[in-house]
């Protein structure tokens, strides 16, 4: 079995082979991220090694000072040795501090470079992936990949890896210094490693599980909280408060309990480390003490040994935490590499054809379309839309209207057959020309944070303010925009900038108008407008659509009236095709719909 892309992300029962495959994928990604900065990685490693060596020198110098400097001063009144030792101490202190500072900055630069690279890659790839992918892989998940998953990788790079590398170096240098100072004590320290490793391993295994519990519990808590706050109107209207309080109380207790278990774990691990350290110190003291009495060890050396032994255990706790951040980051990396492995099903052409000036003839050449493994949406569609014609698509939900529209906008590619613009297959058309020529406006008029003007300018980033205002005037949005607190400069996300669904739609019309495409697709674009707004838009549509190809999908038949030609669709086929007047006069589906609608008017 093999796992490709984001598939199996929610599973946790991978076979050995699958796990290996996913790890390999993560490693490949990691490798490709590190390769461009490998020279800096080596330099940074060099700095941290140097810095740690310098920091570890201290206790040895104290030992040396007491054992050599003091007798020299006592016996010969010679300040030279102690002076040299103190000088060396100052030098190692200053340079060790300077190097550790340097290392901090260098490693931050390194991890930030890697993160920036990864951020951009995921962002770009997300944008490149087709809508089909986005429709199955929910927005929440793709956002999590780019926020919380990247955060756990950042945490690993920033602190986890840092702690591991510097902690490991510190411990090994301290051990080395101890062995150099007194091999016998080194032996004692080596014995103490056994309980240390056992305790740490125990902690890792337990904490991994408990940390997972806290993450799950906090996620539940957060989802419930956010859902309550965003749906507060419904909560109040349906008197959900007392029931909510009980549920939330359960989540809080669960989270509290999970947290308490983690803290309790630390309550054993932390004193455990202290105990191992203290026992080792006592052992070193006894072993050292006997040898001083024997005369085989100097008092200063014993001090150095004790200081080293005590310091040796300092980074242990932080290092034990590394495993947790590593676990989190590894899982994140697996998921991110999965997303990056997805190939866009609507890929950019390798040798694009330019189409500088499109006329707007759209042709469906025996187009068949089906979603992956699903039933066929369009079995075999043959349709020619002459340049400049306005077409209305009518039919029940699921008849394939939106699919047809999305094929023209190349949100999807046909399963077989081809959609062409002026005879050029959309799959071969340069993306820039495609997007300039064809624009689609949907019912969900999304506004980005920024001003109203920014949002309209998305249709054409080069547009001047006058052009933006003209576009707004053309679709009848100018008046309401002017009435906003700061007119065109009103921030749409700020509280004063409340815009209704209808107003959002008008802004998105202005955006499309500014883009000035030769083919315009309106997918239920007028559904959320109230009648006065719709009237404004329809007046605008008459001029907006006159000189371009247009495809309109509308449930409201009033919008259909402005079309040159109406297509009635059923089960992916076109069952009626004619001018509105022709079809109304007939006995078909459209005539029935029209009659029903007319009855509802008065």
């Amino acid at each position: 079995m093999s796992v490709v892309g984001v598939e199996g992300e929610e599973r946790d029962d991978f076979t050995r082979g699958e796990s290996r495959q996913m790890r390999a994928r993560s490693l490949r990604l990691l490798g490709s991220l590190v390769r461009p900065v490998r020279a800096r990685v080596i330099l940074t490693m060099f700095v941290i090694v140097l810095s740690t060596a310098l920091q570890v020198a201290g206790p040895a110098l104290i030992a040396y000072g007491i054992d050599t400097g003091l007798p020299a001063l006592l016996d010969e009144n010679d300040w030279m040795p102690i002076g040299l030792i103190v000088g060396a101490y100052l030098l190692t202190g200053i340079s060790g501090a300077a190097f550790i500072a340097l290392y901090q900055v260098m490693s931050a630069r390194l991890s930030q470079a890697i993160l920036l690279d990864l951020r951009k890659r995921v962002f770009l790839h997300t944008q490149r992936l087709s809508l089909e992918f986005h429709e199955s892989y929910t927005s929440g998940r793709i956002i999590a990949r780019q926020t919380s998953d990247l955060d756990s990788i950042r945490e690993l790079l920033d602190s986890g890896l840092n702690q591991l590398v510097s902690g490991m170096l510190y411990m090994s240098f301290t051990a080395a210094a101890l062995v150099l100072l007194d091999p016998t004590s080194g032996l004692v320290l080596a014995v103490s490693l056994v309980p240390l490793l056992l305790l740490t391993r125990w902690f890792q295994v337990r904490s991994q599980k408990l940390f997972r519990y806290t993450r799950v519990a906090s996620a539940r808590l957060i989802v419930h909280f956010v859902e309550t706050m965003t749906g507060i109107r419904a909560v109040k209207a349906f008197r959900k408060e007392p029931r909510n309080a009980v549920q939330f109380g359960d989540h809080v207790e669960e989270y509290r309990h999970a947290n308490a278990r983690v803290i309790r774990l630390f309550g054993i691990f932390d004193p455990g480390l202290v105990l191992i350290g203290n026992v080792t110190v006592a052992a070193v003291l006894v072993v050292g003490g006997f040898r001083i009495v024997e005369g085989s060890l100097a008092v200063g050396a014993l001090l150095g040994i004790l200081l080293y032994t005590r310091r040796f255990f300092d980074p242990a706790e932080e290092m034990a935490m590394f495993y947790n951040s590593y676990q989190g980051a590894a899982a994140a990396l697996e998921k991110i590499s999965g997303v990056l492995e997805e190939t866009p099903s609507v890929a950019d052409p390798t040798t694009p054809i330019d189409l500088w000036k499109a006329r707007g003839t759209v042709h469906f050449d025996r187009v068949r379309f089906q979603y992956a493994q699903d039933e066929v949406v369009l079995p075999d569609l043959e349709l020619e839309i002459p340049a400049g014609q306005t077409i209305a698509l009518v039919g029940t939900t699921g008849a394939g209207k939106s699919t047809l529209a999305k094929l023209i906008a190349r949100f999807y590619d046909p399963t077989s057959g081809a959609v062409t613009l002026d005879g050029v297959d959309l799959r071969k058309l340069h993306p820039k020309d495609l997007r300039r020529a064809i624009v689609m406006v949907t019912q969900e008029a999304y506004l980005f944070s920024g001003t109203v003007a920014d949002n309209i300018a998305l249709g054409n980033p080069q547009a001047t303010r006058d052009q933006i205002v003209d576009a707004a005037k053309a679709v009848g949005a100018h008046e309401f925009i002017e009435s906003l607190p700061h007119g065109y400069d009103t921030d749409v996300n700020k509280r004063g900038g409340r815009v209704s669904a209808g107003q959002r739609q008008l802004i998105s019309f202005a955006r499309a108008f500014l883009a000035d495409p030769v083919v315009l697709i309106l997918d239920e674009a007028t559904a959320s407008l109230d009648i006065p707004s719709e009237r404004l838009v329809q007046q605008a549509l008459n001029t907006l659509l006159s000189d371009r190809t247009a495809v309109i999908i509308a449930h409201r038949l009033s919008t259909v009236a402005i079309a040159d030609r109406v297509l009635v669709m059923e089960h992916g086929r076109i069952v009626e095709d004619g001018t509105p007047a022709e079809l109304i006069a007939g006995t078909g589906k459209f005539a029935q719909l029209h009659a029903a609608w007319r009855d509802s008017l008065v």
Partner: protein
Amino acid sequence: MSTTTPAPPRLNTMRAIARIYPYAKPAMKWIYAGMGAALAAGVVTLIIPIVLQGLVDGPLRTGDASQIWPAGLLVLALGFLEAVFIMLRRWFVLTPGTHIEARMRNGLYAQLQDLPVAFHDRWQSGQLLSRAVSDLNLIRRWLSFGFVLLIVNTVTILIGFAVLLSWSLWLGLLFLAMSIPLWVYGYLFEKKYSVIARRAQDQQGDLATAVEESVHGIRVLKAFGRGKHSLLKFADQAELLRGTEIEKAKAIAGIWFWLVLIPDVAFALCLLGGVALAAAGELSVGELFAFFATATVLRFPIESIGFLLSMTFDARTATDRFFEVMDEVNTITDPESPRELRKPTGRLTFEKVEFRYQDAAPDLPGTLDGIDLTLEPGETMALVGITGSGKTTLTALATRLYDVTGGRILLDDVDIRDLTREELRRHVAMAFEDATLFSASVRDNVLLGRPDLTESDDLAAAREAERVLTEAIEIAQAGFTYDLPNGLETLVGEEGLSLSGGQRQRLALARAVAADPAVLVLDDPLSALDVDTEALVEAALRRVLAKTTGLIVAHRPSTVQMADRVALLQEGRITDVGTHSELLQRNEHYRYVISSLEDEELAAEERAERDLRLAEEQGRRQDAIDRESRVIDQDGEGIR
């Protein structure tokens, strides 16, 4: 955030944090016990060097090997005690600390659920979430860790210095003098660092927003081919964040530099001084030995002070943010002595109702400016008006999601402010245009307004629940729910299956219907439905509305037709009330709002066509034949 309210006089840090005392009170004795344990641990570690001094100056100098074991065992015992005290400290504060956090979290949640919608309009859920999670987390960690260690480490340092000074006045003073810049720098660093860290956090938030928008708006970005454009914007923001993160690293590098440098320099100078003093005979080797052992023990408490202080300031900020919400006064509360409506008939009366939003400009007229309207029991009233005329606001007033700022609303002649909110909302149910579903099964979502049925163990109640559920789903044309993967048990909402806007709307409608209220308030509940479904829903709704008082916000003539009467809302006032056809006839603004020009033109066209067809009745059969042949032609074209 509420930037408009004037900042209350700033309390000092201790006073500000002391406000959590009521929550912490039951746990305080444990926190003090933890302090005691921590202090004991500190003292024990300081005793070890004294033992060492005795050992070095005694047996080791005289060569008395018999004394080594007892000294070693003493050190071992002290080391063991230290571990025990550390464990006790953690175990004392552990559970009580998490209980404080849980208590505060539940308190915050209760307050937020109680606060009116107007409050939630001002606050983004993200802002509230960070208070409920990270701020309370920080307060807990400060109470059980930061607060304890700040006090204990300060005491330990004081004792430690006393010990150092007792070894040697000059060395002690030297070490003390060297520590002072560390505290000063530590304090300054934390101030500087928190500014940068805050900026990094903000930029990270901005970046997350950019990501969210690029995903939610992906259709727009794709439709206009603006992927590159948004990448550039994103890259700029990411670059900005990188700059801040590196600045942050530089600040950290700065504190590391001093943290490593100062103790090393202090040790080096003390070594020089110590050796000199020892040479002069003013200090024994054992004392020098013990001095360094003690100084090593004190290194961590000294270094930690800066960090603990900053944690204290953070905890203060977190406390302030917590109380910012807790201090908010709820303006929509239950009356002292509520009245009770056993079985309301459903007469809803608006009397000179005025409403203005808190943040509205004072020179503008209110959103609602004197509404007088009566809905008779069982009557259905449609509310019509252009966007921004106040329709949604008016519906929200009926359930006290907002309170009127003038006039009053009566349900069966009782001011709705004299009822408990619970009772009012039991009698008046709502369906909103933007339908919110909760992470629960379809069943639970639909029966949300019927805790009387769902919370009961009674078999009859369960049967009734089933009946209500089936009926509501049928009325709202939400039969699609039976075809979901787990039928009515399918989880929907944030954590569950995502439904289309039309499906969500139908479920929200089913929920309002299932609540079986005396008054049903529907805020444009059919806007996302297609024509066919809309017609079916309307037909079914008529049955419900026949026996229920209804207030329906309507944009379409078809919706209006469900109503007995229509109220026209214009600039915050009801300017006309009557039947649909009456208003169509007499009110120009009504015609403007409810029927589009094209409709009228088309209708005229239709009439002309109909006349024409009547005249051609004779040749009608022939026409039909013609038409058929045309269809066949077209089919032929299609096949070709």
